[in-house]
């Protein structure tokens, strides 16, 4: 299963780099949905010896939520707000890719400084998680469209979830449910606010959000 795990983790990183280096918003949402599905399958390959019902339920919930429900919400927001598909990043796509590559290296560097927890399954989990978190932050701060910022937040959450996988067996199910529910509600409220912003400003570019300044 080690190979499957590594493959899935590499897909996670590739999805990040795709978002950092590509133009159309719809393709980016699909990439993040794909990333969500890869993450949803990870617990099954990471913990092959303890494939309990608990684990299957998590996997199913994650694939459904991150792979279909949340991307669906974002696509609906695009459709309702008739958003143009270009992303208008504040840095060029090449620079974005370059910074993304640096962050992958940084993720491996930081993870190397921390002792590897037991039962991690694969030594790549921690570096992939950390670099995904950092790339999510990069997307948030370098994108002008608030929908892309929400997408960056999703990538950040995916990174944190990746890290959480090494604990999957140790965490109580109730907490996982709570975390998932909060993330879902958060994205739902963000979607609503995006719609309102579009109605009010006639645009969802964060450049318009400059009334409140020192």
């Amino acid at each position, binding site marked *: 299963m080690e190979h499957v795990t590594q493959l899935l983790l590499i897909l996670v990183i590739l999805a990040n780099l795709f978002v950092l280096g590509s133009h159309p918003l719809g393709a980016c949402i699909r990439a993040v949905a794909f990333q969500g599905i890869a993450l949803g399958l990870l617990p099954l390959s990471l913990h092959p010896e303890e494939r309990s019902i608990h684990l299957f339920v998590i996997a199913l919930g994650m694939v459904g939520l991150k792979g279909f429900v949340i991307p669906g919400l974002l696509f609906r927001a695009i459709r309702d707000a008739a958003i143009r598909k270009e992303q208008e990043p504040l840095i060029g796509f090449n620079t974005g890719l370059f910074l993304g590559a640096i962050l992958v290296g940084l993720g491996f560097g930081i993870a190397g*400084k*921390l*002792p590897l*927890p*037991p039962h991690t399954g694969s030594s790549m989990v921690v570096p992939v998680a950390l670099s995904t*978190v950092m790339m999510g*932050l990069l997307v*948030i701060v370098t994108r002008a469209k*608030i929908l892309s*910022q*929400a997408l960056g*937040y999703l990538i*950040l*959450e995916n*990174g*944190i979830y990746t*890290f*959480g996988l*090494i*604990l999957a067996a*140790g*965490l*109580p199910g109730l*907490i996982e449910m*709570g*975390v998932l*529910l*909060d993330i879902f*509600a*958060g994205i739902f*409220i*963000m979607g609503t*606010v995006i719609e*309102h*912003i579009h109605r*009010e*400003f006639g645009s969802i570019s964060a450049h318009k*959000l400059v*009334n*409140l300044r*020192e």
Partner: protein
Amino acid sequence: MTILLLLLLIPVVLAGVSLAIRSDVWRPWMLVIAAVLHASLVANLWVSDAWPSIGTWLSLDPAGKVVLSLISALFLAASVYAVGYLHRRLERPNRTFVTSLLFFLSATSVVAFSQHFGLLWVALEATTLASAPLLYFNHNSRSLEATWKYLLICSVGIALALLGTFFLAVAETFQGPVESALLLPAMLPRAGSLSVPWLHAAFIFLLVGYGTKMGLAPMHTWKPDAYGEAPGLVGFLLSGVLTSCAFLALVRLTQVCQAAGQMDFARPLFILLGLLSMGVAAVFMLGQTDYKRMLAYSSVEHMGILTLGLGLGGLATYGAWLHMVNNGLAKGVLFLMAGNIHRHYRTKTASEVHGVLHRLPWSGALFMAGFIAITGSPPFGLFMSEFTILRGAIGNGHWGIVAGYLGCLAVIFIGMARIVVPMVFGEPPNDAAASGPKDSFLTTFTPLVLLAAVLVLGLYIPSWLDRALLAAAQLVGGLR
């Protein structure tokens, strides 16, 4: 156990009721009903000295009790004001607003009871989500912008806190699987065997994450926008209640660090963020033109003071707990009065507001008194708590910290005085016809009570409160 369930469920049930009520006039009274029931249950906890719990996850301890009582008292004050405020704002439907406020009360109560780091995170994230619709009450472009920034910055912050929580779980299970990971009462006795590098990483992420929620510099950037655009009532609940909940989360983290013998790592970071917050507040206070944003920077300052007190330990930590209570009460006076002034003058620009004392005698007097209280002048309670923290810093011989602390307090006093004094005094503008509603009983009574409470705490601290604060402070190395 029944009491605990009632405390958490009453607001939720009434939120359901308020969704069903059709009248915008009657719906706000649900807030008062919920607040009175909540407060009487909390008062009952004090009288009967009960420590309710459900299992091991939800359980009241001295720190939770102080925070829960503060939540309850401040929400009661806010609810009475809310009735008066919402009756003036009948042009806006208040169904979402009232429902969100009630969910906010329930979520903050869960924070106070929570003994599990995962549950604590879920509850704090729920408070963010419940408060987002509150910021957007005015439904204009500025409040929308503030809501987006609040949602995004706080969601990212709280997401980093989730990562920190996972790090903490790794630190705990590093030596092998443990029973009930992330449960505070189980973690403290075995804190000595936590993996130190992972604990350090967890500390940094939790500090940044919950620090964002609390509004510590440099993660405070959502605060001026949110407090500036939200109704005064919401600013009050965020700056008094929500920040106290985030402070409680930092206290939980400190408990773990202390049990693990890692306070030498934690203290300098707390002190650094504390002083930085005070410094940033002082700088931005000086050039401020908007009196509601001024209050937001005041909140950044006071969160800095709390964190500094936590970092200094000993006497200063006791002072920080006292300061949390004082700050919550005084913020109520200021934010609610700023709301009245905003309604009447229809502007948030301080230079366009003069003669509040003539136009709105009660609001003007209370705003002025609130300013004197919040800047730590005697005889109000904040003077006592800030002085206690100062004594703690001097006792430790940290002269650099003492100088920075006093310097910031002085600059902030001057900065606020330059804004508040010309507003309160002076000749009122002559456009009386264009002005908004006058003071009423509902919009001035509870702030008056809050001010009286701050005054009493400056003159004399009741022994029951003193014991409770000391017990809460002792959890994180505080003493008196």
